């Protein structure tokens, strides 16, 4: 199996603030974020769109350095991207010139491991249920299938941290519900830590052990909700409904309840 229980990463985000350079000065997007992700924990960042949650993910992934503050993985500062932390973006961003198998093989190929570990590619495809589509090209896939390929492309690298940037945001609602359950199964099986960004309250509560509610830009942590329910969860569980009410209240959408 691809995902033998690798120990999940321990992520420390300490006093992180971040500014973007713009044509007329600077724009603050993150304001003093403190967050700790325990090994194997599933944490969701919930906030209004454009609040800066995706920026926090880019910093954690090592794609950009934080202006102020420190981000560390298992005690070591994160300075650059590393295959132990894999990002799944909102768009599947599959390479259209590669078929499904070659897309999934990307990480192994980039690290020169493809020759010795080719079988892991097929394992990862089987894991997301797309073994029969190995030779298809991305334009032949539906949105949900493409996103599952992107997931396989991440999982084949045995990540210690899976960074999920609204990975289900563009899927239709039926596919999204199905994929949420799959994501939980994959996470339980593989044991990685997961950091999910979403603006879907229900999705955050369904998936995560802890939901961090962020404010409008610049993003600050306004609340932390612990979802103390076992998996698999049921969407209409009274506790989830209660938590959803609370999350919406923190987001200033109390009146819509």
């Amino acid at each position, binding site marked *: 199996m691809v995902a033998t229980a690798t120990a999940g990463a321990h992520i420390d985000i300490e006093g992180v603030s971040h500014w973007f350079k713009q044509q007329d000065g600077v724009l603050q997007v993150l304001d003093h974020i403190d967050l700790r992700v325990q090994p194997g924990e599933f944490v969701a960042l919930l906030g209004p769109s454009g609040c800066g949650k995706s920026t926090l993910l880019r910093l954690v*992934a*090592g*794609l950009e350095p934080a202006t102020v503050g420190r981000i560390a993985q298992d005690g070591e500062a994160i300075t650059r*991207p*590393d*295959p132990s*932390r*894999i*990002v799944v*973006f909102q*768009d599947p*961003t599959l*390479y*259209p*010139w*590669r*078929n499904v198998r070659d897309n999934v093989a*990307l*990480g192994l*190929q*980039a*690290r020169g491991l493809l020759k010795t570990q080719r079988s892991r590619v097929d394992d990862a495809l089987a894991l*997301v*249920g797309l073994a029969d589509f190995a030779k*298809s*090209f991305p*334009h*032949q896939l*539906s*949105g*949900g*299938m493409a996103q*599952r390929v992107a997931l396989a*492309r991440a999982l084949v*690298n045995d990540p210690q941290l899976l960074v999920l940037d609204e990975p289900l945001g563009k899927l*239709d609602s*039926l*596919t999204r*519900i*199905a*994929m949420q359950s*799959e994501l939980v199964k994959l996470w339980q099986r593989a044991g990685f830590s997961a950091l999910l960004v979403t603006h879907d309250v229900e999705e955050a509560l369904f998936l995560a052990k802890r939901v961090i509610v962020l404010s409008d830009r610049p993003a600050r942590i306004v609340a932390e909700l612990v979802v103390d329910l076992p998996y698999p969860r049921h969407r209409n569980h009274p506790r989830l409904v209660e938590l959803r009410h609370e999350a919406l209240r923190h987001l200033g959408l109390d009146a819509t309840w």
Partner: protein
Amino acid sequence: MTTAEQVLGGHLERPAPVRAQTPRATAVPASLQDAVVTGLWRTGIVAAIAWLAFGALTLYWPNKEVGFNDWTFTTELGVAALVAGVLLLAVALLGTHAGAAGRRLRPAGQWLIAAPLLLALWELLTAKLGLLPPPFFAPPQSLIDVACEDWARLGLSTAHSLRLLAHGFVLGALVGFGTGVWIGWSRIAGYWVHPVLRFLGPVPASALLPLAFFFAPSSYAAAVFLVGLATFFPVAVLTWSGVASVNKSYYDVARTLGASEWFLVRRVAIPAALPQVFVGLFMGLGASFSVLVTAEMMGVKAGLGWYLQWAQGWAAYANMYAALLVMAVLCSGLITLLFTVRDRALSWQKGTVQW
């Protein structure tokens, strides 16, 4: 694992064909008759008649006297047209039994009617009525004459043109591709090379002809340089724009997966830019034809351009038409070849430009 879109996403599964309700199939409507390969091929019969008529016209209508000896190969042309007509008639009457020949000819049916009509018109205006006067206009049979009398020189000229084109085009395409990737990838190269390219690139390569012949060690080297230059510019610009317009998240994905800089160039930037590169190669090939012929007319003493010039000098207009015909076949053949290569290389693409 069954998920919603496996059930819902129907585009990968084809629905089972619906069985006909009645045992008797409905007769094919007349408007679709030609698409169904059965029995007689009506268009083919019309085409055969047109070819036979063209042959008869060529053979039995005497050529107009024009002061010198008669057009040679008139009989041969007429007989060839009659043979074509008979063969077509056979294919048309055999219908489905004509096999591969029938299947390949069928789509071209209307062209097979138009071609003999146009040839007949040409034959009439030149050899039969003399409305288009010699020596500036020549009838179709004169092209056969040229092919038989002068095939050695024409063939050699074609070979020379091909060699020059190959040298210049390959050189220009390689350098153009390299430059395009370089300025698309490197900030410093973009800053220094791109403005130069923008300023000097649009100058027509043939405008540099006198300069090139003056500086280059031989006229052949000068021509290679100019053909290369004509190819270089579009290839470089389009490769550059292809590399520069690659979706930035493709790089993010590869970087988070542990890709090196070299991997990003080779496995991400170049494949993503390839569709644009082929547009550049197509434009470069077109530009190189024009420079090739100009260079051959101006200084290189071989090739189809030179042949054209030479034929005109001797008022051998039939030879000129023959050379133009060869050139048309050559250029369209090369572009077809390029598109074939592209379709192979970019088979992952959907709905690309057709040639």
